[in-house]
């Protein structure tokens, strides 16, 4: 299961900006609802988070120390 950016649907007003900006087509509009498709193609570029005018998308990073 690929980890994906999180969209807060309560906030999202379906403007579609994130759909346009996502190069790997991981974000689509299905029946006027923004939907994220799980895919390893999403390189966590965070463009969707950057473009969302209302901050409904978050691409959160987990920070870890390298082992050893």
């Amino acid at each position, binding site marked *: 299961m690929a*980890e994906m950016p999180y969209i807060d649907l309560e906030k999202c007003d379906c403007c579609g900006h994130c759909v346009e900006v996502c190069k790997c087509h991981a974000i689509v509009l299905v029946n006027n609802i923004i939907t994220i498709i799980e895919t390893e193609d999403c390189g*966590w570029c965070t463009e969707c988070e950057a473009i969302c005018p209302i901050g409904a998308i978050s691409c*959160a*990073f*987990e*920070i*870890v*120390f*390298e082992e050893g």
Partner: protein
Amino acid sequence: MAVDIEIIKQVAYFAGFASDDLEEAAKPFFEQTVKRGEIIAMEGDPAENLYVVASGAVKLFKTSAEGKEQILYLAHAGESFNDVPVIDGLPNPASAQAMGPVDLYALSKVDMRALLDKYPKAQKNTTNLLAGRIRTLSLLVEDLSFKHVIGRVAGILLKYAGDDVGSKPRLTQQDMAAMAGTAREVVGRSLKMLEADGSIKMNRHRIVISNKKALEGMVEMAT
């Protein structure tokens, strides 16, 4: 040892001067030799002379209230310093220190004024020189503020790094920007830079800290 006309020729004020004008302009300069580490001008003191480096290198720097030193630029042979206070008549904006044995050609404030009055070309050259100084300092400001941001981002990464997955909260670039007091794009740029220098690895939604020491060093630099 007389004032070497070949050095005077390189000084920005005299760009485009004919050789007899150069000879004339060089006359009021007097030599001064300083030892390594000697302070030539002190920040805040009144400025008496403009200096041209004849040999060696001079460090122009400012000292913060905490005693931290910031180098503004290094003047080498053929370059002048102490120009600004001599021109505006205000105290030295920075200190100058010899980085090794240094030979200087000094020009008094009065002689500098007379020179500018006499040669309109020197006035034009002054404008160019000061414009160049502003440009250099603007780049330095940009560099310093970016260094500060990088330091803050490095600090955030260290603070929120867990030993195992899930032990610390996840952060978006927006979160990091708010914590660092900067814009989201600047955080993005900082992460890219940290990745390029090998301090971190960006692995999709995971930021792996591969060089903890380097990040700690950046935090140190920014404080």
